[in-house]
Structure formats: C-alpha cells, structure tokens
C-alpha cells in the first residue's frame, strides 16, 4: 500500500435543517482497496457518499490523494472522484455511447484538441466493453432495461478514469448474474490500481468482494474492518435488528438475514 491514502476522511459531520445526519465519521482508503459501506435505511450512507463527493456541506476534513477537497477546484475534483448516485431517472434519450461519453467532460478542457478526442473515444469504448454493453452502444438509454441502464451508468462513471470511485447501491436493481459481474468488475478495477467505496445492502456480496467494510447506524460508525470482524451476528442484530445465518462455501462466508429479532411480536407492534 502506498503511503498517501487515496481518500481520508476525518471527523465528518453533516447537519441538515438543524438535524445531525452524520456524527463524526472517519476513514482511510488506500490504492487497491474496495470498501463496502453498510447500514440500514437512514443510517447516513448516501449522505456520507455525497459529503465525500463534495455535493453537500460538511464539517471535518476530507482529503483525496493528499489534497484537502475543499481547496480543490470543482473541475480538478471531478478528475479525482467519480460518483454514481443511488438512482437517477433517464433524462433525454441519448445513445448509450453519448451517455457514457459525458464522463469525459472533466477531461475536455481543450475540446478542439484532436488527441484528446481520440483518447476520449477510446476511454468511452473501453468503459462500455468493461460493463459488457458493446452491442447496445447505439441504442437510446430510454430503451434499456433497468439492469442495462444501471450498467450504462456504471460505464459513465468508469469513463471518467479517476483514482477513486464512489458508487451508491450500484447493484440494487441488477439480477444475480449482473450483480456478481459488476462486483467482480469493482474488485478488478481496484486491483488495477484504483480505490472504491460501494454502498451495499447485500451482506454476502459485501463479505465476498470488499476488502474492508464499514457499518453505519444513525450517522455513526458501529464497526469497521475486515468483513469477518464487521459482519458478526451481534453487529447485525444491533444494527439491522435481524438474526442472520452465517455459513461458508469455498472458504468464503455467506450471510443470510433470516428473521427479525422481535419475531415474537405481531407486525402491528413492530411497526408501531
């Protein structure tokens, strides 16, 4: 691991309408690492991702490649961090290739340079190939299935070619085959020298593909470390209020949420 972390966050606080959403979160991410961000709905995962991407005001310090992000101009920041929002509606029905090419915007400082243009089209082609959608590159994004569109969005983020990739629930709308394919791609990208943070709800995918996990609840870090240290029955019960089955297949753990902790009570009592 290199000495300078790709990303470091120190005591990040976020408040919205006088309500504390994040209460002092810190992390350090090195080149080659894939970090899984876990937590129940409303834990502050998406808010933390947005703070890391500098999309909302926060207190504390976030540094990328050793530079304080609040001091870095927006266009330079865009070349350091690629951000994939949780869900987004298709805007205008532009072709897949053109949608992915939007990721090259931060690099198009001098649009009239032919060299840049050639490299842009190479980067776009590569990103589309990485998500396995080369056959659809002429199709309007409005005509894609939910899963295909999710992969096109990922290709757009890959086309930026940043050292850090932030993806908020990138596999939540994908079928099992493409979930595994996309997580494999994230792991491969990190092995090739990038660093990534993915927000996940699937505990088995998090355990299998992420190097480290961070478990959030009510805007605070509950546990952080290797998957086996984080995904313990006690942590899952405390944070998710579920009892989980933990097993092992081919020397890798799988975690199946099995029952709610307050199973004895009726549903009405549970949601009251």
């Amino acid at each position: 691991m290199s000495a300078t972390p790709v990303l470091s966050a120190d005591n990040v606080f976020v408040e919205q309408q006088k309500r504390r959403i994040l209460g002092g979160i810190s992390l350090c991410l090195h080149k080659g690492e894939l970090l899984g961000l876990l937590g129940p709905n409303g834990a502050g995962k998406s808010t933390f991702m947005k703070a890391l991407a500098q999309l909302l005001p926060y207190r504390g310090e976030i540094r990328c490649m050793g530079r304080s992000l609040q001091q870095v101009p927006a266009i330079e920041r865009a070349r350091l961090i690629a951000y994939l929002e949780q869900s987004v509606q298709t805007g205008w029905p532009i072709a897949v290739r053109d949608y992915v090419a939007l990721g090259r915007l931060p690099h198009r400082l001098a649009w009239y340079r032919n060299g840049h243009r050639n490299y842009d089209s190479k980067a776009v082609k590569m990103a589309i190939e990485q998500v396995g959608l080369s056959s659809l590159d002429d199709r309007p994004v409005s005509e894609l299935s939910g899963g295909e569109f999710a992969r096109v969005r990922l290709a757009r983020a890959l086309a930026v070619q940043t050292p850090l990739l932030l993806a908020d629930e990138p596999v939540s709308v994908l079928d099992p085959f493409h979930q595994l394919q996309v997580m494999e791609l994230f792991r491969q990208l990190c092995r090739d020298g990038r660093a990534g943070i993915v927000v996940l709800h699937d505990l088995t995918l998090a355990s299998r593909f992420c190097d480290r996990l961070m478990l959030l609840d009510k805007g605070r870090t509950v546990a952080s470390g290797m998957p086996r240290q984080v995904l313990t029955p006690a942590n899952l019960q405390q944070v998710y209020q579920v009892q989980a089955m933990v097993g092992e297949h081919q020397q890798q753990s799988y975690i199946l949420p099995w029952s709610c902790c307050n199973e004895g009570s009726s549903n009405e009592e549970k949601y009251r």
Partner: protein
Amino acid sequence: MYRRYPLLNYGLVILLLLLAMVSLRIGPVSISVSDMINALVNSQETSQTLRHNLILIELRLPRLLLAMLVGASLGISGAALQGLLRNPLAEPGLIGVSSCAGLGAVICLYFGLSTLSMWLLPTMAMAGATLATLLLCWIGRHHAGSLTLILSGIALSSLAAALTSLALNLAPSPADVQDMVLWLLGSLNYRSFNDIQLCFPFVLTGLVLLMSCGAKLDALTLGEAEAQSLGVNLPKLQRQIIVGTALSVGACVAVTGTIGFVGLVVPHLLRRWVDYHPSRLLLSSALGGAALLLLADIALRLLSSTQEIMLGVVTALIGAPFFLILVLQQKWRLA
C-alpha cells in the same frame, strides 16, 4: 441517424436565407431580386431605386433582422431552459421573464411615460426582465433545485400577469387600454434600426451566454448530483442561463412585445434531429426560431389586409395546435 445535426443546421441556414429573400420581396410594393440588389447598390440612380431603397432600409430590412433576432433569442432560450430544467415544457414565458418585461412596458404606457421618450418603453420592459432575473438568481443562489425554479417562475409569471390585468383594469382611457393590449400582443410593424440598435447588444450578450453552456447542459442529462460531480457548478449554470434568457428575451420583448410559443415549439420540433443532445439543440433552435418567426411574419403580412394581425397572435395560432399534436403523437408512440 448519427451526425445528421450539421446537415440540419446547413438546411436551416438555407431555409432562413430563402425566407429572408421572400420577406424582403413581399409587401404592398413587390420588389424583384434584381431590383433589390439595384436599390441597395445604386440607390441614387432613379426615383424607383430610391423608393425601393427607402422601403428596404426603413421598413423591410429592420423588420427582417428583428424577426431573426427575436426568433433566435426565443428558440435558444427555450432550448437552454428545457436543458437546464430537464423539462420539455420549459420556455422563456415559463420563468416569468417575458411577463415581467411586459409588465414593465404596461406600467410605462399606463403612466403615459412612453410619450416622454421613445427609449423609455423598452427601458422599462428591460427593467421588468432584470427584476425577474434578479429574483430568480436569488432563488437559484440558495441551491434551489429545478422544480423550485420552475414553480417560482410560474408564480412570478402569474403575479406579473395579475398586475398587468390590474393596469388594464384601471387604465385612464380606452385608448390607453388599446395601446397596452396591442403592445402585449407583440408586433414587428413600424420597427426601425433604432429598435435593433437598442436591443442588439443585450441580445448578443444573452446569445453568447446561452451558447457557451452546451457541454454543461449535456452533463445535466445525468441528473443534478452526477453533473455536479463532473465539475458542473449548478448555481452558476442556473445564473448564466437565467441572465442569458433575460438579456436576450427581455431585450426582444422590450421592442416587439410578448411573442409566445416559439421557445416552446422549436426545441421540441428539432430535438429528435440533434439526437436529443441539449448542446446541439442550442444553435439549431436559434436558427429554427429565427426561421419560424420569419415564416409567421411572412404569413401575417400575406394575410393582413386593412387591419394588421399581430405577430404574437399568429405564433400562438401556429404554435399551440402544433404543440398539442406533437405531445399527442409522443403519447401515442409511448402507448
């Protein structure tokens, strides 16, 4: 399908030149192309060339140039606003710029200020547009989303319309009411190079501001958060488009009165031909807007006999049913 948009722009330029030629030719005195060239080059030779020169320079050329400027401003503003708000129903009228400019002019007519100086009416209209812009910029500065901006624009537009109605309601004399209504309907008649001189610097600045935001509008296709993560400064982009629209449309409304539907219909009509790219739509909509307004002006000149039909009425008559057909066609295609 791919790369057909440069052809579209060339086609629109050719159409615009043809329409310009027709616009210069037609009128109570029909002037052939050779007479036109003769009148513009050797204006002093005969009394006929002198007469043609006067008709062209004093009447038809200012009307032609103003139609092109106003059409281009409305077209490009509509395209930019639709890209910014990611809403195909957005147009300059929607954000309240046109109606506030109209209100400024009506106040000027109400108090009889237009008789003091010919510059006062356009100046008041531009002041109305500026006021609307400042208010929208203030709303945009507080990180407001697109929906807040649309709703604020609608509220502003409704307020300006209500105040305009109040001015009409309390007008000192029926003649004042007629002045106000005729001005609000929009017209290119009896406009001179003085009017073009007045609005041109503002229109040009507005057009430059709007043309330079193409790539950022493309990025907004990804949604506001992802566009911002690509380095797009959203509040700045909002300001740039609002100011650009206010300058170009406000200045045009100031000399011609309110002309609707061009900003709505033209981008909608051309979007498919530019493969739905908001950036490519800007230039095409400017050219298309200029062509449509010129066409409407030619149509009304051919149709008008003793009483002039107002340009705003013609654009609404052509634009509204056309837009309804487009919307229904889209609905049927989706079904």
